[in-house]
Every structure is written in C-alpha cells, then in structure tokens.
C-alpha cells in the first residue's frame, strides 16, 4: 500500500515538474544574442555591432566579416544561444565579425525602399566598418532578404572592397512560381499591395509571421508544441526550443516601400535576376559581381526553394564561386542542431583562405 502511494506521489511530482517546465518554456523568454559586442555605428533604426575578439590579434583574419540579416526578423538568430551560435563560432575562428541590425521601422520609415537600404544605409555601415577595422577589403554574408540586399550592393558597388560574398538561402529568382508558395499568395489577382499599405503603412509583423507559419501550418501550429511536450524531460531540447521560440515570436514590421518592391518588382515581375531592377536610377546588373561567391541553399527550404538561389551562379562574373547544398530548412541550416556540424564549418573552410 505504501509502495503504491509512493509511486503515485512520485508520478505526481514528475507531472508537476513537467507542467512547470512547460509553463516556463511557453511564457518566458530565453537569453539569446549573448556574445559580447560593441555598438560602433547607428543611423535611424539601424545599428552596427562589432563582436569582441577572443583570439590573439596575430591569429585573427585581416579581412572583417559583415553579417546582414533579413528585414522582418531580428538578427539574433545568428547568435542564438551560448554554445550554439554562428557568431560565437566565427569569432572563435578568428574573424573580426560585424553585425548590421536593421532595427524595427516606424511609420516615419514607411517610404524606405531597397534603394535606401542598399545605397544609403549599407554603404555608410561599410564605411564605418572599414574605419573601425582599418581594413580596405571585407567579406559580407547575407541571409534571406539580407542576401537580396547584399547581392544588389555587390552588383552596384563592385569596387567598394567586397572580397567575399556569402549568400544564404537567397531569394533571387522568382520565375518558378509553381515551387514558390508565396508567389501564388501575392499574385496581383489576390492581393492589392497599395490597399494593404494604405491601411497599415508598413507591413505588420503579425501578418508576415502568419504567412511564414501558414506555409507549413501543421508543423508550426501543432507539431512544434508536440515536440516540446514529448521532450519536457530533456532540458537540452527544452532550452533549444525556448531559445528558438523566443526568436520566432519576436518579429518586426517591414517598411512599406521595400515590401511593395519585394512583391511587385521581385515576386511578380522577377526584375532582379533579369537585370531589370533599378535603384536610384542605377540598373542592378548581376554580371558586375566579381567578389568570390559562396551560395548556400537548403534542400528542404519551403520559404526560399533552391530554385530561387541557384540561378545566381550563372549570372555573376566571379571566377571563384561555389554552390553549397545543405540538408535542412530555411532557418535550420544555420540554427538547427546540424548547423554546427555542417554549415558553419563549411563557411569557415571556404572563407578562411579567402580572408588572408
């Protein structure tokens, strides 16, 4: 009888602990973006950070690395949590790592376009990077819409010192509409972009978040929580889940002007890859890109299918270029459990000899 009571008590305690873990995971925010950094430049909402080096100066690479993330999420995914952070990994490999955080646009920024990001904010940030690091050449890594911005910059300013360009899951070619679910949703028959922006000014973060999750509704709205439930007794999985959930639920609005260009010029008319995109009167000619190029694509990417990233390889003039295909999804290749084994080491191995 006593044994039976003991078993029940033990089971009740275990269930209570599980519930406490579940409540904590769902209601509290994990400490993300913990790698020490210094703010070196700001302009409007944009901030440029430089990570504090951890290796002796003589072992560091002389060519600094600038990270440029997308516009609708925080860049903290690049520095998710200690022990599982791309930034931390690259700093340990001796890179002088800078991160450009675009910040959250306010209503006063609703007119901001790719023109402003590519030809105003990014060149100014790069100028500061050069001044602070003392280097004339630099490497740049762009991810998702950050990759669109870096690609445009590389094409428009090929002589600005860009030595190495790394594109992660870059949505550049929008011709294969059958494979791009977003392209179907934003078709001009169904969405009136002007009406949407007249109502909101900027594209609301909640709508972007809904759209991203609706691409795989069962995984995002059900499977994600079941995975947490199944692993409540595994602290490592719970912490990883909590960190990712903290990032996923912290979305930001997208400036109205850039959203309009993304939908009309890219998703609908595919102007970038066709060489018809014009920023401030300058045509974005991808053949002007001469920097060493590493394009990373994820084979199971439902947001940016590989067919959107691969065509860049035949458009650029770079003599040194490589297409690297990784198993995983849009975010998983850089922040998933396999990122530290496959994607990050490959980026380091590619960049290392080119950063001398």
């Amino acid at each position, binding site marked *: 009888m006593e044994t039976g009571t003991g078993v029940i008590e033990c089971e009740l305690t275990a269930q209570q602990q599980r519930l406490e873990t579940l409540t904590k995971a769902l209601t509290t925010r994990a400490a993300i973006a913990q790698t020490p950094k210094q703010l070196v430049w*700001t*302009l*409007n909402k944009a901030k440029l950070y430089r990570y504090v080096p951890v290796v002796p100066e003589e072992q560091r690479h002389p060519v600094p690395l600038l990270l440029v993330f997308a516009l609708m999420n925080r860049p903290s995914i690049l520095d998710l949590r200690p022990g599982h952070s791309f930034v931390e990994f690259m700093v340990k490999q001796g890179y002088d790592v800078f991160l450009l955080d675009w910040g959250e646009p*306010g*209503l*006063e920024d609703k007119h901001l376009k790719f023109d402003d990001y590519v030809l105003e904010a990014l060149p*100014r940030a790069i*100028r*500061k990077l050069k*001044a602070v690091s003392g280097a004339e050449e630099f490497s740049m890594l762009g991810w998702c819409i950050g990759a669109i911005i870096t690609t445009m910059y590389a094409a428009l300013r090929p002589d600005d010192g860009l030595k190495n360009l790394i594109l992660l899951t870059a949505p550049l070619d929008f011709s294969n509409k059958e494979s791009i*679910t977003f392209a*179907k*949703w934003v*078709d001009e*028959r*169904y*969405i*009136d972009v002007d*009406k*949407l922006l*007249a*109502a909101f000014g900027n594209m609301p973060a909640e709508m972007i978040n809904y759209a991203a999750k*609706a*691409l*795989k*509704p*069962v*995984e995002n709205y*059900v*499977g994600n929580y*079941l995975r947490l439930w*199944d692993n409540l007794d595994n602290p490592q999985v719970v912490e990883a889940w909590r960190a990712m959930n903290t990032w996923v639920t912290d979305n930001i609005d997208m400036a109205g002007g850039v959203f309009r260009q993304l939908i009309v010029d890219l998703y609908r008319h595919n102007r970038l890859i066709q060489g018809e995109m014009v920023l401030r009167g300058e045509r974005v000619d991808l053949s002007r890109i001469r920097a060493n190029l590493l394009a990373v694509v994820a084979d199971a990417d*439902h947001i940016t299918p590989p067919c959107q990233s691969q065509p860049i390889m035949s458009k650029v003039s770079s003599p040194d270029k490589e297409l690297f295909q990784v198993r995983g999804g849009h975010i998983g290749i850089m922040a998933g459990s396999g990122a530290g084994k496959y994607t990050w080491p490959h980026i380091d191995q590619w960049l290392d000899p080119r950063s001398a």
Partner: protein
Amino acid sequence: MSEAKDNKPFDMFESWRGMRDVYMDTWSKAMVDVVNSEAYAQATGTTMDSCLTASAPFREALEKSMVQALKQLGMPTGADFLSLAERLTNLEMRLDDMDAALIRIERLVTALAAAPAAPPRRAARKEKPKVKQSKEAN
C-alpha cells in the same frame, strides 16, 4: 541484444505516439497541398480584401476625429511626430556625413605624418628683371 529489448519497460504511450506521428505526417502533407493551391490563395486574398475594404471608412473617420481632437487640445498629432522623426533622421545623416569627412581627414593627416620628410626647397633665385629695350625708349 534481444534481452535488452525484452527488459525495456512497457510504455503504453509509445504505440499511441507512433500512430499520432503517422497521422500528423499525413495531415501535414494534406495541409501543405491546401495552402499551395490557387483556391487557398484566392480565399485568403478575398478575406483580406474584404477586411481592408470594410475597415477603411472607420479607420479614416477615427483618424480624422483624432486629429481634430488633438488639435483642439493643442497637442501634437501623429503626423507632427512623423515629421519630427524624419527631421531627426536627416540630422543623423548629416552627422554621419561629417563623421565620414572626419575619417577622411584623419587618414590624410596620418598619411602625411607617416610620409618621409621632403628635402627643404631651395629658395628661388630672384631673377633679374629683364630689361626690354624698346625701340620707343631708344
């Protein structure tokens, strides 16, 4: 190996989880097909368009009444704040331009300081003024 398998405690939820995962996979694939269809795109677009059209008159009326109320109270409106924010951004840009100019000057000064000192120039000889002997003077 088989002994270890036999010693494993029976988990009555194991088979249930397996069935659940199979069901989830099937459901997930079906839903991906649904959201990838033209019908879904059309339905989403129609719903959003209806919401925007229906809410537009209320939004405009609210905005107008809010602006009037704030003006009567002598308080700044949203447009005033936006204008101020734009001016601040412009100021930031000018500051950034000045920062860039300072960086250029600093580099030039450093380069000049690092350059080897040039040999002192000889003082230019004073040339004797050429006397033109004009015919008229003669």
